[in-house]
């Protein structure tokens, strides 16, 4: 398991109150994990804080699943 996945998982579990095993790469924040639009804004903020990156609003709109978030974070860090 990548370091990014582990951290993203922990953030999603904390903010959405879901079980860790539900937070798979293919899980959609809204459809699978019960987030609403404000939850996704807060998740993006938490990713920015945790990984020390900036996620512009137009990029944030494309982050719909856990996998999307991991891919964005990994490319932003490298």
């Amino acid at each position, binding site marked *: 398991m990548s370091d990014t996945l582990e951290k993203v998982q922990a953030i999603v579990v*904390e*903010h*959405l*109150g879901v079980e860790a095993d539900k937070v798979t790469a293919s899980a959609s924040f809204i459809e699978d994990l019960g987030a609403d639009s*404000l939850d996704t*804004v*807060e998740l993006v*903020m938490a990713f*920015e*804080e945790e990984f020390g990156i*900036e996620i512009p609003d137009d990029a944030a709109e494309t982050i719909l699943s856990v996998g999307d978030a991991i891919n964005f974070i990994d490319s932003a860090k490298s």
Partner: protein
Amino acid sequence: MRKVVITGLGVVTPLGGDLNSSWKNLISGKSGASTITKFDPAGYPCTIACEVPLGDGLNANDGSFNAEDWISPKDQKKVDTFILYGIAAAEMALKDSGWKPQTEEDSFRAGVGVGSGIGGLASIEKTALLLNEKGPRRVSPFFIPGALINLAAGQISIKNNLKGPNLAAVTACASGSHSIGEGAQMIKNDKADVMLVGGAEAAICPIGMAGFSASRALSTNFNEAPEKASRPYDKDRDGFVMGEGAGFLVLEELDHALSRNARIYGELKGYGVSGDAFHITSPSEDGDGAYRSILMAIDDAGISKEEINYVNAHGTSTPLGDEIELRAVERAFDGAIKGLSMSSTKSSTGHLLGAAGAIEAVFSVMALNENIIPPTINLDNPSVETKIDLVPHNAKEKEIRSVLSNSFGFGGTNASLIFSHHYN
């Protein structure tokens, strides 16, 4: 004419996390005041407050408040504490009423009205500090919907599927009473059959304590003896003690309540309102605003003033306000003072601002049902003479016919409510 009765009660107060514990501590003369634990109050002019007793979640029924009983930890972070207290007390009241909407039509005919004096002050304070430290991109999307005053009503309507009128009176320390009175109007005017109404407040935070201290409203002489600080009508009183919590009533149209054999606590019989047009924080010196509010409520109730033998006073323990209210009550009850008792439950609970009128309405209804008048604790030496019984120190058993409850707010806004027995 459509009549409004009370069929459910719920509170979260500094005296307990529910109505049973709060009422028991109230009539046994307990004080909810202690040194502030929510933050380090060192250096503040007033270091005491009446905080809601928080439990550790392990001891059920110990009279403490446990947020996780009412809202998940994940959702707790999305709302200010005033909304949290409101959600809890509202659900207690609704559960107590034994009613919930079963059909869509039920939902359409049931509304919510929740007042708050200040709303999410602690959230505003915390977020302002965060904004200053980390910039605008760190402000939570839940900040605004978690702090807005009417979001208590919004959250409660969502949780309980109540799709009727959705309102929030904002009239400082009269917010709770106005929400109850206006909720009753919705039923009287056939806009709803059921209204879940009350008030919620949680302003014990650094900026709240600093702000009320600056306007010279808080007690500062009793930091070493917190339980003595709230002392309405006493000559040593020197300001109010800040409280927090929420109070709710289920108001129901009489036939609606009768048709389901509901337990009826009493009737909300009269509602009076007025403005002082005098000063931003001080009541008008002649008590004219309070006087007219009381008279309007009595007139609205259509009962003689002799029928009212208990007044739950606004009585905040401020040097100016207590005597002005007392004189206004004397004037309004001219010729009917014999046998009149008036106590301030703020002596025990502190001043819950926008929730004060709501918990006091609940206590008024309890007094009516239990025939017990809660005491004015710490009233050792009244500062003025009066023929009204101020119920010092100890609760009093008395057959209560009708109760008047007063609330007055900054800005010169007044509300009076009258609760009577319902006789079939």
